[in-house]
């Protein structure tokens, strides 16, 4: 064997195939294609005539984009009302989640109290139970609230969409994990400086937890806006419907008006698309920091 100086690349090394991109792209590009196709199809269908939408094979480029679909869809159902309801539910759920989960998460992270460990385990356990299991008990509880506390919280009112979602086990867990990483000395310094326990949370811990709060906010908005199953169970009146429910308007028993349904879909998707684009890095952070997808 010939001895070669180590700095020179060996002939086999030089011949090695060099991709101009990361090999991961070979997996990721087809995968993202797979994910983006339904969205594109939705967008295309929303601009087609009903004839084109039901044509087989599918028409990929409508002859003339039919933008009237959007105005027709908007007029076909009280979409303004749906949007308002969705926005109201999302806003209340968002604000309440941020406040309640912060308080509860901080208590679990920092305050020693009897049964803290057990309570936290119980809270975590609820994360393992699928919604379909608790659906009926929650329905009964909400109904009781409607009958005994206020009709605004009861069945067939948007209050029923807010009440069970005012705080989530995930939110509490997520914020607790983040709060535990805030140095205790900071809180002690603030207390020596004359801050109350609650003041420490609001003046020190929360300002330092903005990334976590943003993540939780983005996840909460997304889940609340897209929720379909729970509104489907509790809401029947049209004036109390949220957007996902309202969309089912276009799915008649015998005929589905695809272009209108898709146009409405695009409209309902837009706000979430904006949230997602704005908060994308927080979504990644939430998965990275807890190992749990929201």
């Amino acid at each position, binding site marked *: 064997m010939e001895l070669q100086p180590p700095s020179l690349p060996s002939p086999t090394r030089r011949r090695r195939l060099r991709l101009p991109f990361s090999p991961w792209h070979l997996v990721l590009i087809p995968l993202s294609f797979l994910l983006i196709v339904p969205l594109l199809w939705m967008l295309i269908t929303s601009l087609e005539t009903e004839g084109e939408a039901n044509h087989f094979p599918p028409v990929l480029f409508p002859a003339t984009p039919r933008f009237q679909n959007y105005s027709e869809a908007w007029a076909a159902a009280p979409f303004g009302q749906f949007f308002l309801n969705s926005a109201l539910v999302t806003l209340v759920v968002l604000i309440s989640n941020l406040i309640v989960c912060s308080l509860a998460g901080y208590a679990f992270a920092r305050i020693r109290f009897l049964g803290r460990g057990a309570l936290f385990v119980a809270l975590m356990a609820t994360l393992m139970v699928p919604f379909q299991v608790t659906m009926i008990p929650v329905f009964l509880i909400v109904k009781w609230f409607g009958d005994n506390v206020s009709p605004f919280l009861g069945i067939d009112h948007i209050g029923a969409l807010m009440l069970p979602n005012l705080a989530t086990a995930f939110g509490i867990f997520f914020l607790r994990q983040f709060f535990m990483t805030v*140095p205790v000395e900071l809180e002690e310094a603030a207390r*020596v400086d004359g801050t109350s326990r609650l003041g420490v949370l609001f003046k020190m811990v929360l300002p330092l937890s903005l990334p976590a709060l943003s993540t939780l906010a983005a996840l909460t908005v997304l889940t609340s806006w897209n929720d379909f199953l729970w509104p489907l169970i509790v809401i029947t009146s049209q004036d109390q419907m949220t957007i996902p429910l309202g969309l089912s308007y276009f799915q008649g028993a015998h005929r589905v008006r695809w272009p209108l349904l898709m146009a409405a879909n695009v409209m309902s998707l837009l706000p979430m698309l904006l949230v997602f684009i704005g908060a994308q890095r927080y979504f990644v952070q939430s998965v990275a920091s807890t190992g749990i997808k929201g």
Partner: protein
Amino acid sequence: MAEVEFRDVTRRYPGGRSGDTVALKGLNLTVADGEFLILVGPSGCGKSTALRLLAGLDKPTSGEIRIGGAVVNGLAPGERDIAMVFQNYALYPHMTVYRNLAYGLRQRRTPRAEVQRRVRETAELLQIGELLNRKPGQLSGGQRQRVAMGRALVRRPQAFLLDEPLSNLDAKLRNQVRGDLKRLHREVPVTSIYVTHDQVEAMTLGDRLCVMSDGEVQQIGTTDDIYNRPANTFVAAFMGSPPMNLLPGDVRGGVLHVGGEAVTTVSEPDGPMTVGVRPEHLQLHPSPSAGTVSATVDFVEPLGSHALVTALVEQTRVIVAAPPGTELAPGTRIGLQMPPEHTYFFDAETGQARSRALLTHR
């Protein structure tokens, strides 16, 4: 400014099957108004616990803590009017230096103009005036340390608590800041309690030292007391660098024997005892002779101003400060002379200092 007092303060942490941990056992300590007191001891000796109890960040299991004569046991940290400097400074990272300094004053609803005046004053005193608009993340270690000091000073508290404030600085900066601290305390003589495990820091900084170990006070006194009149073997071995040599000795008929050699006559009852001599007081003779303890050289560390000779007397390691240029091959037999006026006697069992009369002689 105020006097600070611990009365029989005990802190017990309930533990599982291994039993409770007692971090502090009946601490009795009075810090005079304006005094700079050092709590020093190895880690886990209870010094930080004492400080946290005084700050109100932890509650004593029993006993009373007083600041300015008033019992503060039930008060929240913010109500005690004390300021604390933390080991890692704990500057509020989302606030500028100015707001860090002003925070405590604002919390106490000090008028805005007054806050501004006092922050500027303090910043000037500590020479951090040009840093006021920066955030802690943009400061160097030494600057952060000064801001942390400033945040405590600006409040003009009853007492100043410092928890190893220099341990995050490099050696050179630490020496400089030590000097600054001393000057600062002269200019602003607030009652200060300073926790450290570094005995050089302890000896140079404090008016008085409180040496602690295992949750108990070993000795309270000035640097001179602690160094020249150690109350027990723990203090003798902990303070001083290198520490005092402790050798097993034996008194027979009024004569002290160390390493089998009759060293000196003493007025002590017969029996075993521990003999202590500081490295700088041991006299090195090139060969064993009558009246000296024979030892075997292990190694020599030249330090420029002097050399440290480590030798073995039977199985006990002894360090001798020898004149510079001392060269001794390992294994050389040497003689060590113990000057009676610099020899300390401790009880072989309890470790308590035995003959105070001899010790005061110096």
